[in-house]
Every structure is written in structure tokens, then in C-alpha cells.
């Protein structure tokens, strides 16, 4: 069955939209309504080319839709009413998925503690517990939390609120910074209004005296965000991150050896001791009552610190790209 031009056009937009399914569905349904309304006014059925000329190429439309959606979310606006059910469903599904490893780990932990077998079981249980917690909190749950309030409620909209809301929508900075900026701007604009004979009648009037929303937001954004350091001035390279990870692994291994020394037989390197003694020694180690405890905790802390540093370096450094021969020649 041959699809109509409108369907193909919308399908092209959908394939270019880098958003989640329910966001994509909502944005596309809005777009569909617009396209259908336009189609009604046309004498003949439009082609994809007509649609692209009227609304923009699918890639551009998708990019602008995604950009607006991201800016809206970054500005702390609430997700659309239609999305909240989908988000609730997503969280419920994740919770259900998380309960499986959590329950299993709980069983594992209780069983191991009851039987007082070994530390390996404890560690395995703890790892499972961590997996469950990880599944429970998705990385984007904070961003999409339905209860988040917008910085300025769109419900009470005077021209000043409208102006500030427009600025807020274009700011992608942490919430405390955004609140602070908006509070400051609000005070200033109200002071300007008090100094005038008449109050501002529209946001455009404020724009005329205070500056365009877009340029103001861009300037504030630029002044609040971290300045990017050019690659030449970078202190660390990816190579350093690799060394850090290797060192962290070595430290953890050393900590494991100490653990084996304190609670012999847990990872089968030494002659095993009774489990009750091992658990007691392990507890002493955790509570810094053992002679090796400080060393052990120090090794763990140093290892974790190194991993954190390595992840930061990896996140900020661009990936290693082998230099092309031409570039090397050009540089030479």
C-alpha cells in the first residue's frame, strides 16, 4: 500500500527526532494537526516537496522541534500533561525491573548472613543491590520528574513574567543560577517600571528598553557556563585517565589482599578461618577498629577518587582521533 506524501513527510521527521517515544508521538501529533490543517486549504494533494517548502525539510523540522522541547525541559518547565502518564508508566516499569535484582540480593544477603559463609556472598549481594538501585533511578528521571515546578508559572502572566519566562526558556543553567538570574532581572525590570509613568504593556516593550530576549539569554548563558579550555591548554589527556584507571584497579586489588589477610580464606588465597571470626574481623575493619583499617579505607578512597578523576577526564577530553597524514604534513 502506497503511503501518502503527508505520511511519508511525517515519517521522515519521526526518524530524525532524537527523543523518546512518547515525546516523539506528542510532537508528531501536533505537527500532523498543523500539516492536515494546511492540507485542507490546498486545491490538490501536496507532494513531499510542497510540504518541505511550506514547513521546512524533515531534518530541520525535527531539529527545531527537538531543540524547543529540550529548551523547555532545561528551563525546568513541567512535562506536557499528555507525557506525565507515560513518564509514570516508565518509572513504574523501571521500579518493577529493579525489584527483581533487589529481591534476589536481599535473599542472597540474608542467606549468606544466616549461614555465615563468606564475604564473597556479601559482596555479590551488595553488587546486586547496587544493580537494582541503578535500575530504579534512570539517568534522565531527575530531568523528567513530573513534580518539577517551572521557575515562573505560565499561569500568572503579565508582560514582565512573559519576558522573564521567555528568557528562562532559553537559559540552560542549573536551577539555583536560573532562579538567581530571574530574581535579579525581575527586580530590575520592576524598578524600571516604577520609574516610568505607565506600566509595561507588553513583553516587546520590555525588550525595547531592556534588550532582546535572545541576546540577553545568550549573554547570560555564556557568562554563567564554564569556559571551554582549548585542547592545547588541557592539563590532562585520555592517556592519563587510562593510567588512573589502572592505578585504581591496582589499589583495589591491594585492598582485596588486605581483606584476605584480615579475613583469611574468603577469596581462597589463605587457609580459611571460621566464618564467625572472619565476619567479626571484617566488621572491625569496616568500623576502623582493626590495625589495617585505615590503610584499607585509604586504599578504597584513593581508588574511588582516581576513578572519579578518570571519568571526569574521559568526559571532558575529546576522543583520541588518529591524525591524518595530510594534517601532520601541514603542521610540519
Amino acid at each position, binding site marked *: 500500500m502506497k503511503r501518502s506524501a503527508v505520511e511519508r513527510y511525517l515519517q521522515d521527521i519521526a526518524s530524525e527526532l532524537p527523543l523518546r517515544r512518547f515525546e516523539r508521538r506528542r510532537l508528531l501529533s501536533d505537527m500532523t494537526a498543523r500539516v492536515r490543517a494546511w492540507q485542507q486549504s490546498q486545491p490538490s494533494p501536496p507532494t513531499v516537496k510542497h510540504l518541505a517548502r511550506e514547513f521546512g525539510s524533515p531534518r530541520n523540522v525535527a531539529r527545531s522541534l527537538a531543540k524547543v522541547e529540550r529548551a523547555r525541559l532545561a528551563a525546568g518547565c513541567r512535562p506536557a500533561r499528555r507525557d506525565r502518564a507515560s513518564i509514570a508508566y516508565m518509572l513504574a516499569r523501571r521500579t518493577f525491573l529493579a525489584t527483581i535484582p533487589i529481591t534476589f540480593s536481599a535473599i542472597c544477603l540474608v542467606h549468606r548472613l544466616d549461614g555465615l559463609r563468606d564475604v564473597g556472598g556479601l559482596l555479590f549481594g551488595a553488587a546486586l543491590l547496587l544493580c537494582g538501585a541503578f535500575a530504579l533511578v534512570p539517568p534522565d528521571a531527575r530531568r523528567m520528574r513530573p513534580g518539577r515546578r517551572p521557575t515562573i508559572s505560565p499561569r500568572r502572566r503579565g508582560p514582565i513574567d512573559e519576558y522573564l519566562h521567555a528568557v528562562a526558556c532559553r537559559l540552560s543553567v542549573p536551577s539555583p543560577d536560573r532562579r538567581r538570574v530571574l530574581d535579579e532581572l525581575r527586580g*530590575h525590570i520592576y524598578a524600571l517600571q516604577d520609574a516610568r509613568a505607565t506600566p509595561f504593556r507588553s513583553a516587546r516593550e520590555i525588550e525595547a528598553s531592556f534588550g532582546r530576549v535572545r541576546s*540577553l539569554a545568550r549573554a547570560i548563558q555564556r*557568562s554563567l557556563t564554564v569556559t571551554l579550555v582549548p585542547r592545547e591548554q588541557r592539563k590532562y589527556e585520555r592517556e592519563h585517565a587510562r593510567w588512573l584507571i589502572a592505578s585504581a584497579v591496582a589499589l583495589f586489588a591491594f585492598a582485596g589482599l588486605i581483606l584476605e589477610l584480615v579475613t583469611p580464606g574468603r577469596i581462597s588465597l589463605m587457609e580459611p578461618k571460621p566464618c564467625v571470626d572472619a565476619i567479626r574481623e571484617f566488621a572491625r575493619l569496616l568500623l576502623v577498629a582493626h590495625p589495617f583499617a585505615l590503610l584499607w579505607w585509604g586504599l578504597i578512597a584513593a581508588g574511588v577518587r582516581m576513578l572519579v578523576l578518570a571519568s571526569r577526564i574521559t568526559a571532558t577530553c575529546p576522543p583520541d582521533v588518529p591524525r591524518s597524514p595530510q594534517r601532520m604534513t601541514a603542521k610540519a
Partner: protein
Amino acid sequence: MSIDMGDYILRGKTSVLPRKICSYAAGMRFPSDWIRGLTPMLVLETVAADELSGLHILARIKERGEGLDIPDGTIYPLLYRLEKQGLLRSSLRRRPRERSQRVYELTDAGRRALAAEKRRWHQLVNHIQPFLAPRPT
């Protein structure tokens, strides 16, 4: 005759004016680039005397600069930048029955930077002045 020189247009016989200009109270006009470049120094100098909010910093600049016109919206990005650079420090000032206000004060680094900027500005003026002095006929 009109020669385009990037931002500047050389018109007729006398005036070299940029396209974007910033008005001055005494009826004179200055390039906005000049003002933009000098605003950080003006802000630091204004804040050096007292703790002031953004609104009051602007008012003080207009007052001391005899109506020097700096657009209201430009002051905040600049204040945030200076604060990020550690030249200014901000704090919330609570006021009874009024909105609390964020005020800015100069840090030690800011004082040093201001002194250096002033010194450089005077040096620049000294360098430029001989060029602009009337030529002996």
C-alpha cells in the same frame, strides 16, 4: 563617498562612525565597541566605593558619566562574568518589607585588576594622545 571598513563606514569628509553607536547625554555619540570594552572597568570602579546592586551600579555609572548610556540588559551578564572571574563577590541583602536584593562588592583580586586596568588605560591615553594632537603647520 562611502568606504566599508568592516564595522566602520567612512562617510564624506569628516566622520568615522561605526554602524552601531551608543548615545551619550551631551549629544555626542560613541562607538558601542568602545563602551563595551570599557564597561568592566567602569563597573569595577563603581563597585569599589560601595556595595551596590545591578540597578544601582547602572544608575551610578549614568550619574558619574553624565548620562553615559549603557543598555540595562548588558550589565547582568557582565556582573556574572566578573563574579566568575573572582573580581566581584555577591551577597543577598535582606530589606524589611521589600524584596531582598543581590549586591556586589569588589574582591581583593578585583581591586588589583582595577588598579592594573586604570594604569593600562592611562598608558593607552598617553600613547594615543600624540597621534591626535594637532599637527604643527
